[in-house]
């Protein structure tokens, strides 16, 4: 299915958000995830199924300032 991840169109096999993170080799503890502008709780990652056309934002921690 076709989804948008961080503004870029991507073809993915689908599944839950957690499965998408695994496929992209992203550690779930390291990101905040929004699907269609809704922030997901950590426990929702494995329960939320991605649908065709979804827009996913993976927000990584960005700590620097110095």
């Amino acid at each position, binding site marked *: 299915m076709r989804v948008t991840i*961080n*503004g870029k169109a991507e073809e993915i096999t689908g599944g839950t958000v957690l499965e998408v993170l695994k496929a992209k080799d992203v*550690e779930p*503890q*390291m990101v*905040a995830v*929004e699907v269609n*502008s*809704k*922030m997901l*709780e950590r426990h929702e990652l494995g329960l939320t199924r991605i649908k065709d056309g979804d827009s996913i*934002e993976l*927000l*990584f*921690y*960005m*700590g*620097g*300032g*110095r």
Partner: protein
Amino acid sequence: MPFVPDSEEQVTRYSRHILLPEVGGKGQKKIGQARVLVIGAGGLGSPVALYLAAAGVGTIGIIDSDVVDLSNLQRQVIHHTDDVGRPKVESAKAKIQALNPSVEVETHYSRLTADNALDIIGGYDLVVDGVDNFPAKFLINDACFFAKKPLVHGGILRFDGRVFTILPGQSACYRCVFKQPPPPGMVASCQEAGVIGALAGVIGTIQATEVLKLILGKGRPLTDRLLDYDARLTRFREIKIRKNPHCPLCGAHPEITQLIEHEAEVCAVKP
């Protein structure tokens, strides 16, 4: 010292501001009366403090417990080669005063802690986050929420930068996005991962602009949206954020009711 409209020096100095309908003499006076706290006199704090000083912000507070290191100079443009070894707050104060002697500079040569955060932040109208570690970023977010002070958050790493403005109680806060700091050692710091120096200028000047807009009450602040900048691609992206009802700080059932200090993660990214 606040802006004095009948002083020729002041009118000339701020003429390019005063020309703007959004600023004018009235707005410049507001800028002159504002008290802004810059937390961290490093990569982000440097451009923030310099631009706020140039703009004529009446009082700039700077808190930092570090001394200038040679490796800072690649991006921390408020510090010069001669300043190596000098407390950053003193070095920053000297540059601010050289740029604009009418700015009052208050230096806090210490670390922001759960014990002193509310006292220090309470003395200012607005706060700018220019710190380099997560425990401090969460502490600043929480303290600004409890003290009800607008916060302009910023972050930089490698080629990526981020800005996010928070109006406590009104707009989404940092914990609406990130509930807690990442596990220690899992996120690289600039010290370990590097950062392209000019990126600090891009993000810091956006933060300074946000501060001026908030002082003036003009434009639309960067609230409820994160601005992410990818310097590799020269691409800005805006990510909509909603106030999170499950936010542990500003949500419907807050778990955080007083300031807490998260464990310092220090610099330990696994090789």
